């Protein structure tokens, strides 16, 4: 009987998938292929929103990859600006793109709902690397910027790259543009290439390479947070080593610029309830996120400010003119 029911449900879901029934209540657009961070944000938050009874039925997750979020941004701005049932996943990475003029519009085109947590940047080397400390690394880069080949999961000028350059700048490295940067399709491919000796350093989100930290295959020189992080209290922050650099990658949502105040406030409230739930706190920590809340107007202001900062940094290090 149960099997029969689940079969029916499966068929229903399959049919819904194929014919994209418009009556679905809530929808979350993940502006990337399945499997990445934004996809994860949509699927996890979507799952918990319905598990906690905050939305009716399931949250439909739509993958809309393209241009590091630009395609989804253009789609929402052009066609669904006033759709009150829509969430779009984004993160610091998306703001970086906007600040560098790579989206068809600025942050003021959307309404920013909330962030629910943040991944923390790490700078790591292989366990058998002769680079022992952050001071050691920055000393080498200062003497010869090409001496260590650096890598991460973003392209040149992306957030992984910028975080590293901020640190190098704080360490007194002058020829920032000479530092070699290699892009891989994610944090763990970058780490395995580092373990194989192809590159010397990885700068990425801690959550992506948590497994390698636990197994001891890599040495973390610095985490880019204000305080030591709860899951790995022993990892040293860059701040504790005298470099005033932090590099969070928050995870959150925006919705169309034409969404009514009522719908906007309702979403912020639902997300806040979700954030406060034990289930989210647990899920976030398990995936390497530090639960951090900013919502509503506060978040809107925060995004505007970060956008400004990011544009300044990008200009400073020569990513944009």
């Amino acid at each position, binding site marked *: 009987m149960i*099997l029969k029911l*689940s079969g029916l*449900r*499966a068929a229903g*879901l*399959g049919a819904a*998938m*194929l014919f*994209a029934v418009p009556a679905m209540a809530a929808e979350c657009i993940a502006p990337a*292929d*399945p*499997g*990445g961070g934004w*996809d*994860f944000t949509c*699927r*996890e938050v979507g*799952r918990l929103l319905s598990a906690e009874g905050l939305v009716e039925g*399931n949250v439909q*997750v*739509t*993958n*809309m*990859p*393209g*241009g*590091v979020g*630009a*395609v989804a941004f*253009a*789609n929402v701005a052009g066609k669904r600006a006033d759709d009150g049932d829509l969430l779009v996943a984004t993160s610091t990475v998306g703001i970086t793109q906007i600040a*560098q003029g790579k989206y*068809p519009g600025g942050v003021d085109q959307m309404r920013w709902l909330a962030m629910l947590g943040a991944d923390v940047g790490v700078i790591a080397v292989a366990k058998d690397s002769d680079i022992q400390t952050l001071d050691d690394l920055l000393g080498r880069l200062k003497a010869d910027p090409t001496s260590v*080949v650096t890598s991460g999961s973003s*392209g*040149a*000028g992306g957030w992984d790259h910028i975080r590293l350059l901020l640190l190098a700048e704080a360490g007194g490295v002058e020829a920032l543009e000479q530092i*070699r940067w*290699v*892009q*891989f399709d*994610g944090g*763990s*491919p970058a780490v*395995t*290439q580092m*373990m*194989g*000796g*192809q*590159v010397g350093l990885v700068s990425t989100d801690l959550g992506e*390479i*948590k*497994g*390698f930290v*636990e197994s001891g295959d890599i040495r973390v020189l610095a985490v880019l947070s204000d305080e030591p992080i709860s899951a790995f209290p022993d990892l040293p922050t860059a701040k504790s080593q005298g470099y005033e650099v932090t590099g969070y990658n928050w995870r959150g949502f925006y919705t169309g610029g034409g969404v009514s105040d009522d719908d906007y406030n309702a979403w912020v409230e639902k997300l806040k309830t979700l954030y406060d739930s034990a289930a989210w706190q*647990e*899920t976030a920590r*398990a*995936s390497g996120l530090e639960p951090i809340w900013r919502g509503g107007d506060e978040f809107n202001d925060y995004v505007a400010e970060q956008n400004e900062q990011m544009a300044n940094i990008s200009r400073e290090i020569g990513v944009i003119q």
Partner: protein
Amino acid sequence: MDILSLLWDGFAVAALPINLVLIVAGCFAGTLIGALPGLGPVNGVAILIPLTFAFGLDATSSMILLSAVYYGCMYGGRISAILLNIPGDEPAIMTTLDGYPMARKGQAADALAISGVASFIGATLATIGLTLFAPMLAKAAIYFGPADYFALYVMAFATIGGISGSDPRKTLLAALLGLMLGTVGLDPSTGVARYTFGSFNLYDGFDPIVALVGLFALSEILFFLEEKAHGGGLVPPGRVFPRLTRVKEGIGASLRGSVIGFIAGILPGAGASLGAVMSYSFEKRLSDKGTFGDGDPRGVAAPEAGNNAASGGALIPMLTLGVPGSGTTAVMLAMLISLNIQPGPLLFERSPDLVWGLVAALYLANFVLLILNLPLIGLFTRVLGLPAWGLMPLVVAISYLGVYAITHAAFDLLVMVGFGILGFVLRKLDFSLVPVVLGLLLGMDMENNLRRALSISGGDFTILLQSPIANVIYLLTAGFLVLSLWLSRRGSAIPSRLETPGD
């Protein structure tokens, strides 16, 4: 032995009634999803993730279901490739080369049986490899750097000239066209837009699966319309039951293809498509007597074994390192994380139930797929007996649905139509379409790895020749080319071969 006792525990997990049900259901769903043009394993797995949450499945059961779907898709992709000349997913393109000619000769049932058995052999050997050597192989795979991957793609392109029957110059030209199309989109290493003409829709370039559905499915329809106007007909259904003797002809090729595919699968930067290409080219060089491209059973067996073995191989970096070897394994990893299982080097130690339960489930899934697929051959071949006025519109509808389901962008439907027209024109000019897709599919990875190697060296091209692994690959490539040159010279001395010059 330690591994055997772990595997035995794994079978105890996999043989739980709920898991058995999931294996059978997953295999069946996967075969269907794989057979539909456009829908492939990535979508299949992504569609099923909400279901695993809805049923409250635990991590092990979820992984078993998704892996069964993944394996099932690899089996299914070949069905439409053989019957309709429309590959169900990317790795199945090589199967069209000999599978469809077999179907045209009325041997569809044989081709389906051969590919089914080849898939079984490939997947089973890969699963055995996974059981015995996973941690060791993963350690070896990490020493493959960007320069080595680049060499691997050079090898693949060096062998492309010989894969299709028509003029090798046209094959190379078609591959070049694919490579050019592959440069469209954001440059991954710098984020600069290339050939996008200001359209955000082109920022991610042409999705190979969209190109594939357009090139194969739509051009096939256009061709059919034209032939119909001239009184041509459909492929004959032929025999309903396969002949055992034909199946036996593919066994050797399956074994060789499995080994090549497995190696391609283990390397996270390679994958199932590359595995299928290499298996086919190697087999063609080894056993071609002028029958490849014309419906040779070995030309069906080798790439099918290759792509199934590669899928099994891709689970090795996924389980031992947490590195996705393909889009599908990336989705599976994301699901593990959301079930509070941290993928990475410690997965084997911390979650032995999950890993070994999954491995055992893969063995079972293989048997289920074989048993499921062989009796269905009769049903599949009857598809060819459907009247064209029913079948052809259905193919068009499925193509549109499949492509839309992947990207949710109407723009991609236009891209698909564009590729359909391109495919029609190219076929009119007697170009093979396979190299176009390969150029597009492999070219992007080839370029990425070249760019990475050059980023490491600071722009110095000699890095490409500094790695011993890369040098071995270049030597193999050179040997391969010399061998094929020698074989073709010897071949052209035989009078009957003069009819197909340059083959």
